[in-house]
């Protein structure tokens, strides 16, 4: 195949069993990143089985009829792969990056990961690792904060779930529950395979077709619903932590909403980690070591979050300054000049990130889930450039970021110490 030097090639195909395949050929790459993306996560679990998606992701590495646990670990080492897996509220993915000559080997192993044996012995053994991961997470302020925040923000909505589960749900989880969860959610109709970098599409396609020929189709989709907004302050006092960390959240767009880039530009202006409004108001005044804004897009809901990490004595002042910046943005919108600067930043980071197969492969999946097709960097740039000051104003009318917020704080302070910062 002759490919002009700077051009990427996109591929998409739906196999007859329903498995969706996506690809982007990157001419300058020597490696390729391959991903199996399963559209299932903590929100799709029965409440009493909370944590089963993540536990299952661990079990994927513990072997099946074709490869034992050791054989999987060994294979990734033998092919020199960087590999990993992750679970969130809505997805579970298995990822490997290898030199191009090892692509078909990596795909072969990734296929095994998605079809684990789930033996009772391995299950009970791996349970200990999960319990260690939970214990470790509970020692980490960032994780404790995020878990409480999501629970505060989403209340009884399935998005309030903790991806790791709790000591109790994991200790009580029967292996049968995981087996039936797998049978239901790990079918071809609920999976996407994506690859970015240096590979041959035709051989990837032929290989996957053969390997997945007998896979079950399973179910796809989930029950979706907008979550009720429940503003309020929740302070989790943990005296072992020395920093006070706070998240302030408001509803934002879901992942298929075309205003995605409007939200991204807004959060860049408000709280990018350099040069943003919060950077000047909090970081550069020494009020907070971290003061950043981001969005989290989910299928049916979205959250705009501001994160602050500070010391206990400065928490009230930091919160007041943050809320003052959010009020200013809500009332006054953004300036033309700062919007232009945010566009340059976002465009540059899209191009620079686009050189990395790991980043590209995830953005293929993102494009597919949001647009139903693959988008070039040029199309993304066009969307970013199209956002106007008025679009941001309209977003702020639809999704006010002030005054009503869900605020969660974790650290040495009691609620009475924090409250003055939000009143």
């Amino acid at each position, binding site marked *: 195949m002759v490919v002009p030097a700077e051009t990427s090639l996109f591929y998409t195909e739906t196999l007859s069993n329903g498995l969706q395949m996506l690809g982007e050929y990157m001419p300058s790459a020597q490696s390729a990143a391959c991903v199996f993306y399963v559209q299932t996560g903590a929100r799709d679990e029965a409440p009493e089985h909370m944590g089963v998606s993540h536990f299952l992701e661990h079990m994927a590495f513990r072997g099946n009829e074709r490869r034992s*646990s050791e054989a999987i670990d060994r294979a990734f080492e033998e092919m020199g792969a960087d*590999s990993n897996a992750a679970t969130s509220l809505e997805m579970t993915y298995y990822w490997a990056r290898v030199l191009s000559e090892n692509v078909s080997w990596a795909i072969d192993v990734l296929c095994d990961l998605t079809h684990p044996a789930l033996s009772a012995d391995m299950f009970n053994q791996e349970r*200990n690792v999960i*319990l260690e991961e939970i214990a470790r997470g509970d020692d980490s302020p960032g994780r404790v904060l995020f878990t409480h925040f999501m629970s505060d923000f989403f209340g009884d909505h399935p998005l309030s779930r903790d991806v790791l589960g709790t000591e109790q749900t994991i200790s009580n989880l029967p292996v049968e529950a995981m087996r039936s969860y797998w049978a239901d959610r790990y079918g071809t109709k609920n999976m996407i395979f994506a690859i970015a970098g240096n590979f041959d599409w035709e051989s990837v396609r032929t290989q996957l077709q053969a390997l997945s020929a007998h896979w079950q189709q399973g179910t796809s989709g989930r029950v979706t619903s907008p979550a009720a907004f429940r503003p309020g302050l929740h302070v989790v006092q943990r005296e072992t932590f*020395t920093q006070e960390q706070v998240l302030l959240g408001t509803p934002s767009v879901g992942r298929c909403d075309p205003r995605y880039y409007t939200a991204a530009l807004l959060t860049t202006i408000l709280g990018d980690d350099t040069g943003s409004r919060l950077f000047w108001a909090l970081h550069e005044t*020494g009020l907070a*070591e971290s003061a950043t804004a981001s969005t989290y897009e989910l299928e049916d809901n979205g959250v705009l979050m501001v994160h602050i990490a500070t010391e206990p004595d400065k928490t009230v002042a930091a919160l007041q300054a943050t809320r003052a910046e959010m009020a200013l943005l809500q009332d006054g919108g953004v300036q033309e000049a700062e919007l232009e600067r945010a566009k340059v930043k976002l465009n540059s980071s899209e191009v620079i990130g686009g*050189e990395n197969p790991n980043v590209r492969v995830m953005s293929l999946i993102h494009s597919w889930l949001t647009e139903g097709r693959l988008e070039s960097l040029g199309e993304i740039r066009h969307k970013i450039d199209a956002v106007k000051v008025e679009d941001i104003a309209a977003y702020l009318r639809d999704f006010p970021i002030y005054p009503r917020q869900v605020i969660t704080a974790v650290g040495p302070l009691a609620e009475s110490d924090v409250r003055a910062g939000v009143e």
Partner: protein
Amino acid sequence: MDNGDQFKQHLLASGVQVVGQPMAGVQSAALGIMVGAGARHEAAGQAGIAHVVEQLLLRGTSHMDARQLSDALESLGISYDSSSGVEMTLVSAVMLGDRLPTAIDLLADVVRFPSFPEDAFPTVRALITQERRQREDQPAQRVMDLLRQRLYEGEPISHDVLGTPESIDTISRADVLDFWTHRYTTNDMVISVAGNVPWDAVIEQLERVTATWPSGEGRPVIHEPAARRGVTILPKDTNQENLGFAFPAVPVTDSHYYAARLLTQVLGGGSNSRLFQEVREKRGLAYAVSARFDTLEKAGFIRIYVGTSAQRAHESVQVVMDELERLVAGGVTQDELTLAKTRVKSQIIMRSESTLARMSANMRNWWYEGQLHTLEGIRDRVDAVTVDEIVALLQTLRPLENLNVVALGPRSQEDLFSGTLARA
């Protein structure tokens, strides 16, 4: 394998070393300026000053205040960062290639003409105080950092980059100017560019920009630091016991550097490693368990981390000690070595696809070794390592006799180490 990418090197008239690697097929360029100014250079009573200086660099120059500087970088989408460590300070940026000339001008200004505005000092002090708290709240990071400090206690490379609360409070603007004047000099500085970079134009610009920069005493000649064994218990009411084990290895300039790297890979470099298999896969003692190998000038050290539940911490210590004993007694197998080689080579190639990673690797190679390594050259050195070389290296390193251990968590020394460390 290198896609026709070329290594470049040039000594500027000012004395600054420049290394570069133009890369085909990328739009981005990475730029770094590295200065020999780190915690190891700090005098008693000025602990943390290298970090204070680094934190002040981007807060104003003789030509621009902090906001003008930030606007100039941000309006071109130049993503920038600064950091300081034990041995050096680094200012770096990634951008689309056509913005490289502006980035060079701005970062050069930051390094050579910082204004150290008096009103930025309170901010920097406050942020460093918070950084210390942040580190305190991350047990794994804290343990890894403490291992270096304890392993080299009494040596300059044991200095804490964050200083002490007292030293950070007392460092004055005069101290900062003095440290900067002595350390930010052309003959202890490397500039690195990689990616979409027009090499000749870069050199022409750098010659012009650095023409008047002063040289200094150059890089101080240092002795090989002595390592110590020891045990440190930091009681903390965490769920997990955070265990760290360290022993000295070899510096990057040593002919056995890759032997040390491969032995670390076999011991704890990923899910196929001995520690991962024994601690996590077979016994479920931990979620996080790994070994890493780091080098400084004339020093190298291997650190092991295990985060394990308090009830099973003693067993985790036992397994780590058993694995170290097994390694020393039996070395590694040919099979393990072959696997580790594949992994290490593959990682080096994959990381070399990023302009930022190449800029940084070339800069460090030049800094520590005065040479650049092609992927072929690295591959040859990795391939040349034998089982016998690793066995011999382990006999020299004597990990068990030179072990420094740090434990952060709820358990006492007796709980953790009775009957285990005694064997060392």
